């Protein structure tokens, strides 16, 4: 009688991978989104320094994406 080798995947490991993906991919996404906004903000600030506050706020708005990712990662694990 042949014995089949059964491999188990630890659910905790899969959860960790999921959590990692959630944070990693959203991090990349917000990075891509912030690239253009950031360079635009720097451009505007170079001409008019008073735009610093607005530029900073607009630049970090895509940061919400990675925060959602972090929340999802925390919920999974």
């Amino acid at each position, binding site marked *: 009688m042949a014995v089949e080798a059964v491999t188990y995947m630890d659910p905790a490991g899969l959860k960790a991978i999921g959590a990692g993906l959630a944070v990693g991919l959203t991090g990349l996404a917000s990075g891509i989104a912030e690239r253009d906004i950031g*360079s*635009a903000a720097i*451009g*505007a600030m170079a001409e008019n320094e008073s735009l610093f506050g607005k530029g900073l706020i607009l630049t970090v708005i895509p940061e919400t994406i990675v925060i959602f990712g972090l929340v999802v990662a925390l919920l999974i694990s």
Partner: protein
Amino acid sequence: MGLLQKFTRKSSPKQSGSGSNYAYVTARVRAMKSNLLPRETYPRLMNMGIDEITRFIEESQYKQDVDELARTYDGVDLFEHALNRNLAVTFTKLINISEGELNYLISEYLRKYDIWSIKTILRGKYCGASVEEINDSIVSAGQLSYPFLSSLSEKESYESIIDALSGTDYYPTLKEYDGTNLSDIENQLDKMYYTGLSTTVDNPKSNDSKLFSKFIRTEIDIKNLSTLFRLKNAGVEKDEIADLILEGGLHLSIKEIEKLLPLPFSEFVQSLEKYPYWEDISGIVRTEMDSLVELETQLTKSNIKSASSFSHVYPLSIVPIMDYVLSKTNEVHNLRIILRGKAADLDEEIIRNQLVI
């Protein structure tokens, strides 16, 4: 960083839109545009005396240019030079801050100023102007730098000037110059500029080249229209007009212009009704016109207006930058008209008619 920019520029001047830093340049240009004088300023300037206007300009964005040139010049000349200098600095900045295809398109467009400067130098030599006088009229807003252009104006003869330009695209046209046919050469240089621009965007692939091409072709249409109006009104023969017409218009192709050429002025005006520009000029054109100032102002105005409305449709493209270039040039023109007009004691009404607000 600068080295990196130079490298990317040299290695791929025609690369697709991905190499361009649109977000940075358009945001910066919009901030620069917000520094331009608002339209309400012009009526205020019209009511001021020349002293008040000079004080106003000294306190505006032209302050630095006025301060730096104040040692050498005074009066209205000072402001004229300050305005020219500011224009050159601003446009060179546009070339310096852009990358990739955007940089290529802006530099091609600003070649206008290279041609302007070469024409100024040749014309200056033609009428025997002094080196200082020629240097004062140079606007080095294009690819040729001010030191290079002023070294040209220091040369004794036109032959040595043309020899010094032998490495440039202008050489084949310039070498036809024999000391007498200056106006021909000037026309050819202008034609060369627009042909060059049309071939740059001949088969536009990226979305941006398409927009740029549309912008350029509208400009060619407007140039052709004002040439047609001027020459038709002066009763110039059609063969002579045909020589001065630029190719590559958006709505007025060369074939359509050829149809318009033999018509008398009144019929010519009527046949313009089918073109989109009619909407802007219909209130002004008559079958008999004494002065074309109002018409030309209106055409420029409609060009600026369409560029500005397009810049909202395509916010991350070349259009906001071209819009800024037009508005900035226009501001400098307007200020110069007001200053020179006031200095020459012109009637307020005449100055007002010349302004494009």
